């Protein structure tokens, strides 16, 4: 009996050792467009490290490359990571995508994930993936927070004109999808709200974002959302509020209360760890990787940051109800009965552009009464300019 037990123990130890060896050999390379000082990249760093911890990978199995521009340096870095023995290589910026594909062509046995990218489906490579959380869902919920505040201000008579502002980076689908989700969240509370969008033409430009926020405040906007990565807009909004203007901020990525203690209501956030964990796990097990991976509230892929002190009474309950409804499917963010385009309901919209003219022409996105965002591919493709939102053009 003793012999049997010791044999069993030896075998068990050996098996654990084997399992550990295969996990020990696994390396993940991560290419970051900035470093930990940028909120966007910090979220990715935390996501990868969090996933590594859950999966039992040690810190030295993750190789980070910081401050990699969206140029051939990205291909160089990806190839270098492959040469260092990484079996999975991740990039965090949209602009890295084309360069990742170059490296993927060179290293067919290594898997490449271009996070936030949108071309994996048409590259004809089976070692590339894109991934993107359902940010439109957290945008909607942050819109509910903004809507509650707007309603409170209007009920109190402080505000009579439900004018919303939004600082956007670039006029393309990711931003359009985000601001529309945010706007529909507000309108689920205050149906007469309308919104102006001011673009900065940069993902990260604190001065331009502050200037855009100031321009929107001057136009009379009382709540300003954002899809740009700096704290420029919330800081400017806090400054305006300190001077006595009634205006509040809804941020993105990072909790803005540090720079806008009384102006910040909440921020829409992505929980990258919930996307990285399954993807890294699949790569470790050598399973087939999906070309596109996208999850939302149902899998904790998105969230909003803690509510700010200025939030209206009852906000927490409204937020909880909205999240529950999104989770059980009874609420669809892009329910076609909640918006119109040119005064008409939208009944058909394509998700993909297959012939390269930038007009979507394939894969019907609208069915069952709602727009199926991030289901055909992971990156957002909702590009309908709905009624009630005006894009302000520069100059």
């Amino acid at each position, binding site marked *: 009996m003793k012999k049997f037990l010791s044999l069993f123990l030896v075998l068990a130890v050996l098996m654990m050792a084997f399992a550990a060896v295969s996990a020990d050999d696994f390396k993940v390379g991560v290419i970051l467009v900035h*470093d930990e000082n940028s909120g966007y990249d910090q979220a990715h760093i935390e996501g990868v490290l969090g996933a590594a911890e859950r999966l039992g990978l040690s810190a030295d199995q993750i190789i980070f490359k*910081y401050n990699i521009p969206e*140029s051939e340096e990205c291909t160089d870095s990806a190839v270098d990571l492959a040469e260092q023995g990484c079996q999975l290589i991740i990039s965090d910026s949209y602009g890295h995508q084309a360069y990742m594909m170059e490296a993927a062509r060179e290293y067919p046995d290594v898997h490449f994930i271009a996070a936030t990218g949108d071309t994996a489906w048409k590259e004809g490579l089976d070692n590339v993936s894109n991934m993107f959380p359902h940010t439109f869902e957290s945008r909607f919920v942050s819109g509910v927070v903004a809507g509650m505040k707007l309603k409170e201000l209007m009920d109190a008579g402080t505000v009579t004109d439900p004018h919303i502002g939004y600082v956007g980076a670039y006029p393309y689908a990711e931003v359009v999808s985000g601001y529309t989700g945010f706007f529909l969240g507000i309108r689920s509370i205050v149906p007469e709200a309308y919104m102006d969008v001011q673009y900065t033409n940069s993902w990260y430009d604190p001065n331009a974002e502050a200037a855009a926020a100031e321009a929107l405040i001057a136009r009379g906007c009382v709540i300003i959302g954002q899809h740009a990565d700096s704290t420029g807009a919330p800081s400017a909004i806090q400054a305006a509020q300190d001077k006595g203007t009634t205006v509040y901020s809804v941020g993105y990525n990072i909790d803005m209360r540090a720079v806008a203690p009384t102006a910040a209501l909440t921020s829409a956030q992505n929980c990258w760890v919930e996307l990285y964990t399954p993807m890294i796990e699949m790569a470790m097990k050598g399973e087939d990787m999906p070309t596109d991976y996208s999850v939302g509230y149902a899998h904790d892929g998105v969230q909003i940051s803690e509510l700010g002190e200025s939030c209206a009474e009852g906000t927490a309950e409204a937020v909880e109800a909205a999240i529950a409804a999104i989770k059980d499917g009874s609420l669809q963010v892009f329910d076609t009965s909640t918006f119109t385009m040119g005064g008409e309901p939208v009944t058909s919209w394509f998700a993909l552009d297959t012939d390269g003219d930038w007009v979507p022409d394939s894969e019907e996105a609208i069915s069952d009464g709602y727009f199926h965002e991030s289901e055909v591919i992971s990156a957002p493709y909702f590009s309908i300019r709905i009624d009630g939102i005006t894009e302000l053009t520069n100059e």
Partner: protein
Amino acid sequence: MEKKEPLFRITKRGAIPWWASLGIRLIGLLIALILCAFIIFGITKLNPLKVYAAMWDGALGTNRRMWVTIRDTMMMLCIGLGLAPAFKMKFWNIGAEGQVLVGGIAAAACMLYLPKTMPNWLALVIMFCASALAGAIWGFFPGFCKAMINTNETLFTLMMNYIAIRLTAYFVAKWENPYGSNTVGIINSQSRFGWFPKVFDQQYGLNVILVLVLTIFIYVYLKYTKHGFEIAVVGDSENTARYCAMDVKKVIIRTMMLSGAICGIAGFLAVAGAGHTISTDTAGGRGFTTIIVAWMSKFNSFIMAAVSAFLVFLEKGAMQIASQYQLSDYISNVVKGIILIFLLGSEFFVNFTVKIRGSRKSEVTK
């Protein structure tokens, strides 16, 4: 009256042998490395020797890394070669960044619009000429205004950079792919039309050949041709040049166009030979960094190659230590900065000598 001799006196030195000046620079480098070692250990508690080994590894550790280092060295050297003629004429061309960008725009335009049925070598020849021409035009304006109405070339070329950057932004918006993304993406990624072919089975072989030919050309041009002599004379004294019946205006405009053309070719290298795209970062600040290169090497093409290689080595090494030791870029940039300061500082000791009081018999009479 008693005149007190200062503790330190600085006097200009005459010419010193090349081994002495090299020695001074090496001592400067050594002191910089020792100082950095203390800083690295003080801040990060890492073994500085290991950190230096990582820098070496990052720049030259693998075949691929070595070629990337070579490619970037060639790019920097090419811009340096462009600056050399202008600088030798004491025409401060701060506009390399813009000249590289317009060259890059021209190359990218060719990649997009030339008929794809054309043989690749012909396309590359056309792209080469188009980029050189675009750079030459960018160099012509400041050269012309300097020659005709004596405008300040430093400001003029600097301002031309911003025009070039805005122009690049315009073309990026025009050619953006995918729509709204504000990037051009990789041009012709399937057909590889307008890309440098592999030479000797090396992706960047052509970059090396092209720039080495240019290096020899500029060396000979500046040292052994009539044009080169005219540049030197105009640089030292315009009046002397005029006295010698040189057409100063012609020399200024011609040299500035040459300078711009070579920087334009650097743009061609960046687009066709490396990035295969165009963005406002295509020049990536190298137009400014290279001013250090041209200056430290006294416009000698071959020394310029060594200095470029050293700067790129530092850059790649800094990237590697940031990645390997999870250090922020700041610490690696601190190392880079200290080494550069000491190297520039050694120029002082090459040109001047410091005498300490009492080291020689006082010449002051009582």
